[in-house]
């Protein structure tokens, strides 16, 4: 398994697209940081820091594009046979891809967070990470936001992975992943209205995309009709379920 993960990471490392996107993300964070320094009325430091200097939020787009292609590229390039005829099983190949996706997501998030901390240190040295707002320090709130985003990212990526196992073309998988992202997040917001009328609708997977928002604002429980703990558990359960469906689809596909 270690060799398979190493192999997947090696491939991702040589796919320049997401590395270039990561550099663009960092440059964008720097750009917004400098712009915010010059125009603090437009971009207050608090807002910039809590949102990873705006561009840090594109972590999910990079991860969606990368996840969408991690399986489909093997079919597009005809390399799936080479992966599968060796001493490994389909399940191992699939798990190695999931681990690579998680490592990549973690890497992107660490880069976004590190850039935020460094920029804040340089551009806003007096920024008080330990200032308390509503009984929570700014630093705690920041990490709650990052944690919530990661949970949402996991759920979205499991859906994207599931869809990508159906495609033989990278471009189709990536396009579907990104369009799917917007549709799903839009659906999640609209669903809140419907949940107000039919409470049982809260169990649909899209509701759990609001877990990040509820972690930051527990009052959202009045709209989702679920406790934050239930939302977190539900998000993880749906992530596993979609991941498992993705595996079944991957296993069934002919070579």
């Amino acid at each position, binding site marked *: 398994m270690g*060799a*398979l993960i*190493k*192999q997947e990471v*090696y*491939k991702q490392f*040589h*796919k*320049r697209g997401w590395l270039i996107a990561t550099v663009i993300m960092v440059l964008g964070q720097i750009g917004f940081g400098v712009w915010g320094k010059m125009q603090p009325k437009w971009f207050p430091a608090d807002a910039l820091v809590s949102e990873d200097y705006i561009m840090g939020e594109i972590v999910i787009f990079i991860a969606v594009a990368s996840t969408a292609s991690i399986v489909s*590229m*093997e079919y597009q*390039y*005809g*390399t*799936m*046979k*080479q992966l*599968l*005829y*060796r*001493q*490994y*099983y389909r399940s191992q190949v699939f798990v190695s891809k999931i681990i690579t996706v998680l490592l990549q997501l973690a890497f992107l998030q660490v880069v976004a967070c590190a850039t935020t901390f460094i920029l804040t240190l340089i551009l806003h040295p007096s920024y008080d990470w330990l200032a308390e707002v509503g009984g929570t320090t700014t630093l705690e709130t920041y990490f709650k936001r990052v944690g919530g985003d990661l949970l949402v990212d996991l759920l979205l990526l499991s859906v994207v992975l599931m869809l990508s196992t159906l495609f033989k073309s990278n471009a189709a998988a990536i396009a579907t992943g990104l369009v799917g992202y917007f549709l799903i997040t839009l659906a999640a917001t609209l669903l809140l209205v419907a949940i107000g009328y039919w409470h049982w609708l809260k169990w649909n997977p899209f509701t759990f995309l609001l877990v990040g928002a509820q972690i930051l604002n527990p009052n959202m429980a009045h709209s989702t009709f679920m406790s934050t703990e239930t939302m977190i558990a539900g998000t993880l359960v749906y992530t596993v379920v979609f991941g498992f469906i993705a595996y079944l689809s991957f296993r069934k596909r*002919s*070579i």
Partner: protein
Amino acid sequence: MGTILTVDHLDKSFGKRQVLHGVDFFVEEGHIVALVGPNGAGKSTIMKAILGLIPVNGGGVDIKGQPVSITSHQALRNVGALIEYPGIYPFMTGRQQLALFANQHGKAKNVETIIAAMGMGKYIDLPAKSYSLGMKQKLGIAQALVNDPKLVILDEPMNGLDPQAVKDLRDLLRNLAARGTSILISSHILSELEKLADDVLILNHGQIIKHSTMADLEQQGGVGYTIEVGNIDQAKAAMAMANHPFETVGNAIILTHAAAGDLNHALYALVQGGVAIVSITQQSDDLEGAFLDMVNADGGEA
């Protein structure tokens, strides 16, 4: 030398269409075995089954006594393969791709050796998306060989290779076999297989119709003739009267493995019997001749 690969009564269907019917054969260590057959005969299906890439409906495969199936891959540890066409990551160079698969087995040092053996030095550091068909084919073969496999499965490896590259590949495979590597190879270039293989498997309609050594096939060979006649019944009677061995296909008398003078004797018998001779065709009983004879005798191509 023992047996490295055993294929035992392999059956495979795609939907209602059965493509393999009880395929049985073995490959001995250090042997190069040619798997030949018409398009659609089942060659790639057999190779995929050996590599545990597809489920089978009956029978089994084992490599060095270890079973191989879609859920049992341990025996594939020392197997290298190129199936149908080379899988290439276009965003990597050839060297990076070889390193990718060599690293998997801790055989990074083999990368330089295989690059030199395949004559890929000039372009190995270019992105693979710029490679020609032949370059990709060489890279695919190199990927199959980079881990020093004990068993190599090559499906149409000569596709797209120039004559020099075909010769280089032949020499490389012969050297590998001399060092104990077993090779199962399919190709439509039968003249190349004839120069390369120790054993031959002829496949038609999903069945092995001949398993022979190349030496036996050559020994059995000779020159054959097809004599097309006006009236086949009259011709059969004339040949029987002359007590001359023959076979028939349609309106033709076939003389296989004909010795010197056999054609004269047969023609004499036919003329004596008043048979009109329409045409005479000569075939040499090389692999191609044997292949065509056997496939035709088996009811034509798959």
